[in-house]
């Protein structure tokens, strides 16, 4: 599939899951218009969903006064997104591996693993309140 139109946008959102949902739909629609494959779209969808929910729930503690900044772009090579919350941040290394036996039956803690598994690049800033992800376009 040939690449469609390029996109480059910034959004500032309140920490409401409904607002995240709306933003997610917009981001995904634009990624789709850019011509990413179904498999790429599944990956992008999952990563965007997990990152936005994490920013609202864990980063900003669902405080609607706190903002989530989203920057995203799509070009012939890749889809790229950065999500930043106003929380204290965290260290990804401190997140228990949900695949270990002792964590397998826990009800949470899988979002980061899924982001890392489906995206080609997932990196956090030093304080851990901003995640940058890249999905290279499948050939």
């Amino acid at each position, binding site marked *: 599939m040939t690449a469609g139109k390029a996109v480059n946008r910034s959004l500032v959102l309140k920490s409401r899951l409904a607002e995240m949902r709306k933003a997610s739909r917009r981001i995904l629609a634009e990624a789709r218009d850019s011509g990413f494959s179904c498999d790429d779209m599944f990956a992008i969808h999952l990563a965007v969903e997990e990152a936005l929910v994490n920013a609202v729930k864990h980063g900003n503690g669902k405080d609607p006064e706190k903002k989530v900044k989203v920057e995203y772009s799509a070009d012939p090579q890749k889809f790229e997104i950065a999500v930043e919350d106003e929380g204290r941040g965290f260290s990804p290394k401190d997140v228990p591996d949900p695949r270990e036996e002792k964590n*397998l039956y826990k009800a949470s803690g899988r979002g980061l693993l899924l982001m890392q598994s489906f995206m080609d690049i997932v990196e956090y800033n030093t304080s851990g309140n901003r995640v940058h992800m890249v999905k290279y376009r499948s050939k």
Partner: protein
Amino acid sequence: MSGPKPKIVVEYRGNVAVATFTDEKILDESHIKAIEESVCSLVKQGDYTGLVLDFSNVEFLSSAVLGILIRILAGTKRKGAHLRLCGINEKVYDIFKITRLNKVFDICLDVQQAVESIPVG
């Protein structure tokens, strides 16, 4: 006038309750909560030996849904009932494989296989 579409549709096959998710995407928090409440109330009430969750309409789900499934599994075990998942497409199954939850849940191809796999009595 038709009302809002139910998030799950339940049918009974003998002593097995089969709950089919109706939405393609399970991600909205209220959606997830509605599913959890519906299935948990199914788990609490009724005298059945098995619960089958049919994902054949589901194209996408988030990690929050996996958490609910873990809680549902615990609930069915407490009741002494069997839980089966079925109708999971390849991409969604990848999510289970990556998280190793394909080792935690009994995942069947379809409803018939899932129902037949549940011991009688």
